[in-house]
């Protein structure tokens, strides 16, 4: 049997097992449900408001944006936080101690996070269909756009998440990352059209994948006329594809180098040192 193929299969299985754990562990499940409920609550609150300059419900527009941003949030933050935590607790060292374990570990992580995203997006979209009107999902084109934005969004954000996970020293600093990501969401035009933000904020937002994921999802799920409130009065599919691809290429180039470096430095005593540090924090 090919050794590499065995590791790939083990990785896929690992991803599936951890995905199952996530949806059978009550605490995890409750966290997911509460987060989803909060987002939906905000949108329901915005349902009666209209997108400025139109008669379209801001709640519905926000739903589309939130679906896009949830892809990015999971790809970036969840990936980074999981990697940091499992670096600290020795999961990575275990992977290093078995043949092809790191390959299996990373494939597993990608599968788990991607699975979480797909399940999360589906769940929110289905709930949204009952709560909101005006979603334009009747055409095959809408589903096609949704699929490529989601897939490219994962390829763009997962490697960057892995890079951040490899750079962040401990679970504590991962909290700072979450703060930064929340700041990024604020300038990404998810809850309010980005055209109403100051110019410099628009540029910051457009530099990162979150804005483009929100835009891509809006383009998939909202009527064509809504493009009028976006920058350039267009869904800018080409630019979306370009920016997300650029992030994907950058991430895929840098991530293997940093992950290898992180793996190389891993040893029993480095895990023990982190454990002691974490214990002191608790004490």
């Amino acid at each position: 049997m090919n050794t590499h193929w065995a590791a790939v299969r083990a990785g896929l299985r690992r991803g599936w097992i951890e995905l199952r754990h996530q949806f059978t562990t009550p605490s995890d499940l409750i966290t997911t449900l509460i987060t989803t409920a909060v987002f939906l609550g905000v949108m329901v609150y915005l349902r009666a408001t209209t997108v400025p300059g139109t008669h379209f419900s801001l709640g519905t527009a926000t739903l589309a944006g939130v679906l896009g941003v949830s892809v990015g949030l999971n790809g970036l933050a969840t990936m980074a936080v999981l990697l940091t935590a499992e670096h600290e607790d020795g999961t990575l060292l275990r992977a290093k101690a078995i043949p092809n374990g790191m390959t299996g570990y990373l494939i597993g992580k990608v599968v788990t996070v991607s699975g979480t995203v797909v399940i999360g997006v589906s769940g929110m979209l289905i709930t949204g269909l009952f709560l909101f009107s005006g979603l334009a999902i009747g055409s095959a084109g809408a589903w096609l756009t949704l699929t490529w934005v989601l897939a490219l969004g994962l390829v763009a954000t997962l490697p960057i998440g892995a890079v951040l996970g490899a750079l962040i020293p401990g679970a504590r600093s991962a909290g700072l990352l979450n703060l930064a990501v929340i700041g990024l969401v604020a300038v990404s035009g998810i809850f309010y059209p980005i055209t109403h933000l100051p110019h410099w904020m628009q540029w910051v937002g457009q530099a990162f994948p979150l804005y483009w994921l929100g835009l891509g999802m809006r383009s998939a799920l909202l009527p064509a006329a809504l493009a009028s409130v976006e920058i350039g009065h267009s869904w800018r599919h080409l630019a979306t594809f370009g920016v997300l691809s650029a992030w994907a290429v950058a991430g895929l180039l840098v991530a293997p180098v940093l992950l290898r470096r992180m793996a190389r430095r891993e040893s029993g005593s480095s895990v023990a040192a982190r454990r002691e540090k974490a214990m002191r924090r608790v004490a």
Partner: protein
Amino acid sequence: MLDVRDLRMRYGRTDVLAGVTFAARRGEVLALLGPNGAGKTTTIEILEGFRLRSAGQVSVLGTDPAHAGEAWRARIGVVLQSWRDHAKWQVRELLAHLGSYYAPYSAPGLPRPWDVDELIAAVGLTEHARKKVRRLSGGQRRRLDVAIGIVGRPELLFLDEPTAGFDPEARRDFHDLVHRLSDLDEATILLTTHDLDEAEKLADRILVLAGGRIVADGSADELSRRMSTQAEVRWSRDGQRFVHPADDPTRFVRELFRQYGESVEDLEVRRASLEDTYMALVRQAESGPGAGADTAARRLSVVAG
């Protein structure tokens, strides 16, 4: 199996290992014994391929661990101290998963991985096979750690401070497990410990690491004989007690009987214990080069007497 020559490790300007040399044969259980900070963990991590050495030659299963590939990795086992990793996994699920990485590395007569239920039974976790890892007690977790270390049927197994934090009962269970392991598969085992008693119970051969060097190498018995040639002879005669150190206690006692015959009573001959020897070696190594280990051991056995 294992061949280490003049291994050196330097951090900044400190030499943690200053020329470590030893070897292990197939099926041997070796204990690397030494005080905290002697370089035991550094040594074992270099052999595991987890740390790069500064200088020296290292061959583990015929390969330099610094450049070894995944096929080499499949032939060694590392027992890690778990903390909270894989908390949501069930015991059986985790072992079956980690074992699956070894399947392509089966060799004729050496099927990999170990059958998961057999393995769980071997480490005494059958009742807990369906339990989540986070629900295991400390002792059960360590058994799981050992099971993970040996799931690929390693030819060489590394255990770093395997019983740190164990209560006496867990420690005895663990010792039984290690004995069974070395009998079962003829696996070569290298373990580190700072517990002399443990080294004596588990190992065929003890290496004492102190001050960055191997200061003694041999079976527990050999060590105490080689290091403490001097013994202490106690006896009483006419109600009076005597204590006398002797380099050759046999001759000394023969002489004693020849002189005093029947009046010698309460005769006692004591060699320095392995612990005395060990303490002397460590103290001597830590106080830097100077007097030979023999002299130090002798000096201590006198003090202890």
